[in-house]
Each structure stands twice: as structure tokens, then as C-alpha cells.
């Protein structure tokens, strides 16, 4: 019902929670010009074939803004699924299923981190129990050796390598990592440290969004 902006050492983050009225939780989230809409439904009904005796079944569906869903989208779904699986307390809801659907609205190169963060906000909006929130940050290394956090598509085209890290909210340990292009050890760790610091800002952003959601002068159904 409202929009928040993050402090800007990085690209502008904006988010609107409860965007979809029929989902248990949803978030329209953007980093710069990349926009993703995540919707969470669950824990709820599950097909017999997917029923687990001791946990909830997780499904992630990602739709690109243009074109058909192909192998790139399937791997993105797989990465988000394994990330989210680690954080949601699946054992609290046996014999149920939780669905996460992500629609890419606009693409400016940061599909993975925007989708992951949108998923986290949608899960927070739905009230699904998690161990901690998680934050994804992408950075790229330019040919001149500078590390840019949350680059645009144009900056990514010029870069030598890019890396996306997902950190957990408690101790900022690495939950997921994805790298493309060559990086020597030094640069890899420099990227990791920079992303870790940027993740703190993302987590603070989540906190401000949730504080505004529950602030006393608004009424929510």
C-alpha cells in the first residue's frame, strides 16, 4: 500500500507490499530499472505426488518479461528454490505446498538479485516462518578493476565478470553464490566483502518496509 526508497549509496530500491489482493503475500520490488513482482501462496494444498510426510513442498515459477521460459529461467528457478528452501522453516508444515511465483516486469540486468529480494519481501508479507531474511547483491568488475555494486545492463556489458551473492540476515554468511566471467582470488574476495557490506543496507531496507507496514496509524485487513 505504500512505497519506500532506500538510502542511496547503491541504486534506488523501491518496494510495494501486498500488491496482489488474492495472494497470501506479494511484493513489487525494483533495484534501479529492474523490476520483479513476487507472489507467495502457502502453505496450502498439495498434490498427492508432491506430498512429503515431514515438510512443505516448495515450488518456484519464474516468468521472463519477454519470450518463452527456457533453460536460463529454469536454472534461475532452481537457484531461488534452493536458496529459499534453506531459509523457510519447512518442517513446521508437513503435507503442504508453498508456491512462489515471480514475474519479471522490467529487465535491466539484475534479474537474479531482484527476484531473490522480491521473494524475501513477499515471504515476509505473507508471514511465512523463516530462520532469517536474506538479501541478494550483484556486483561486477570493470576492465579497469573497479567493482560496481548493482550495475545497469550497460555497465554489465562492459564488465569482465559479475558475481551475485545471497547473504542470510543473521550473520551475513553466504547462502548462495553465482559468478560469471573470470576473477582472480583477490578480486573475488573484494567483491564478496563489498557485497556483504551492501547486503546490510538491503536488510535495513526490509526492516523499514516492515516497520511501515505495521505502523499504528494505518489499518490493514
Amino acid at each position, binding site marked *: 500500500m505504500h512505497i519506500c526508497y532506500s538510502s542511496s549509496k547503491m541504486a534506488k530500491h523501491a518496494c510495494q507490499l501486498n500488491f496482489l489482493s488474492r495472494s497470501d503475500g506479494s511484493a513489487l520490488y525494483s533495484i534501479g530499472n529492474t523490476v520483479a513482482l513476487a507472489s507467495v501462496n502457502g502453505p496450502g494444498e498439495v498434490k498427492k505426488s508432491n506430498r512429503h510426510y515431514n515438510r512443505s513442498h516448495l515450488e518456484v515459477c519464474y516468468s521472463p518479461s519477454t519470450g518463452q521460459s527456457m*533453460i*536460463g529461467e*529454469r*536454472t534461475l528457478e*532452481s*537457484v531461488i*528454490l*534452493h*536458496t*529459499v*528452501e*534453506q531459509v523457510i522453516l519447512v518442517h513446521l508444515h508437513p503435507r503442504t505446498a508453498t508456491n512462489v511465483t515471480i514475474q519479471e516486469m522490467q529487465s535491466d540486468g539484475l534479474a537474479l538479485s531482484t527476484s531473490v529480494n522480491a521473494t524475501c519481501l513477499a515471504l515476509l508479507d505473507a508471514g511465512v516462518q523463516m530462520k532469517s531474511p536474506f538479501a541478494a547483491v550483484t556486483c561486477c568488475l570493470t576492465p579497469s578493476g573497479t567493482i560496481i555494486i548493482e550495475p545497469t545492463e550497460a555497465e554489465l556489458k562492459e564488465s569482465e*565478470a559479475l*558475481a551475485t551473492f*545471497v547473504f*542470510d540476515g543473521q*550473520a551475513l*554468511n*553466504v*547462502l*548462495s*553464490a*553465482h*559468478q*560469471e*566471467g*573470470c*576473477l*582472480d*582470488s583477490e578480486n*573475488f*574476495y573484494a567483491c*564478496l*566483502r563489498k557485497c*556483504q557490506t551492501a547486503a546490510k543496507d538491503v536488510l535495513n531496507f526490509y526492516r523499514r518496509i516492515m516497520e511501515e507496514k505495521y505502523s499504528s496509524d494505518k489499518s490493514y485487513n
Partner: protein
Amino acid sequence: MTTMDIWKTFEPDTYYKSFLEKNKRPDGRGLMSVRPITVKVGTITTADGSSTVRVGHTTVICGIKAEIATPVLRNPNQGFIVPNVELYPCCSHMFKIGPPGEKAMATSQFLKNVISSAKVLDLTDLCIVHNKLAWCLYCDVVCINYDGNLYDAALIALMAALQNVKLPAVSYDEENDKASVDIERTLPITLKARPVASTFTVYSDSIQLMDPTAEDETQGSGEVTVVLLENGSLCTTHKPGGQLILPNILDTFVDLAKQRVHAVNTLIGKEINE
């Protein structure tokens, strides 16, 4: 059935844990030791390049077929390389008949990523005639026995098969717009880089295992794969979720992976030269 077999069937978790407490795995290996690797090239005579790789019990076959295609307008002087991984039900009970599942797609994408990140091939080398003809290498990687660590085995198989590829000479008649292929004269392709992958399973905060078997992967909580080039730089890191790790653990993985790079490339080199 022995008592050990009974214990393994009825309580696989405690059975496995009892080995880890003594810093060993059920197959006798230490936590950071790797399985023996066997590489054979030229195993498929009808393919333009092929290899069979065994990492412990995991067996992967790679066959490469070269076809002539038209380059895309955006890159008129580049050829194509299309890796595709298949996981048939014969390799493990985990995989069913039908379209490629998650693991097969993830592995295909991983191979694509490594090839473009490491710049293994210069795609302009695959171009025959600018804007008209180029080679397209279809690389089919098939797993026939899955015992864990598919990423490492698939990459070794792909690299060995690429080094085994012999492309026939093509002559192009401009006036009649006809291409003719001379199968007798063949040339190998030059590879600019030889990346090697090393996969680790994270079992808990303090226990990590190198080169996991299928049992290690089921018991563990997530894999981490690091791909290094010969000069030690990191070409790809792949950690799709799974147990949280501290950044200094990634350090340990990279150091262990460095030792593996040289060993694997020497092995492939020896096979190619025979």
C-alpha cells in the same frame, strides 16, 4: 545381510554420521580426498569428438557433432557451441523419463556458463565464411551412472571431447554458393583455456566433503562448485542455496581446487596424446 547393512538400511542418517565422527566416509575416503578419475577419448567413432570419463562410479559420456550453420546477424563471424546434458533413468532412481529435469538443466547451464566465462573457445575460430557459414558444435553429455559430483565429471568429459574434436576442411565456392566438406583433411580446434571444476558438499557448519558421492549429496545440505583455470583464477562459482558457509571456507575450497586443476589437466593431456 550383515549388521552394518541392516543399520545402513534402517537408519541411514546415524550410520553416515558415525563415519564422519571418525573423519572418514563409508567408502573409506577421508573428507578431503578425491576419487580416481579415468578418461578415454575417441570412444564414439561416429562422433566428431568424444570422451568417456569415470570419476569413481560416476560415468559420463560426451559426444560432439559438428554441423554447418548460418551465423546470426548480430555476430556474423561467430560459430556456436551448444552443450546439452541428459540424465536418463538408467543412471539413478532419482531421474524419470521425460523432458530434462532440474538437475539436467542446471548442469547444461553450468557448462554453458563455464565455456563462456573461461573463454574456452574463440567462437570466431569456428567461423568458415563471414556471414554465411560457421560450425555449430552440438555437445551431448550423457550420464550413464550417477554416483554424485556430476558437475566435475561433465566438465572433464566436455573438455576432453573438445580436445578430441577434428573438424574437416570446408571449401566454399562463391560463384555457385556451394560448400564442400573434405572429410579426409581434418584439423583439431584450439582451446584457449582448460577450466577444471571441484565440487564440495557442506554437511554442517564444521564439516565439508570434497568430491561427494550420491550418498554424500543426499546426506549433506548443499553443494558448492568452484571452477578454476590453470593460472589459479576463479572462472565460476556455483552455490545454489544450501547450508550457509563462512567466506573463509570458500578460501579453503579454492586452495584444494588449485591442486586438482593440474592433476586433471595432465590426465586429459596424456589421453589426448595417446
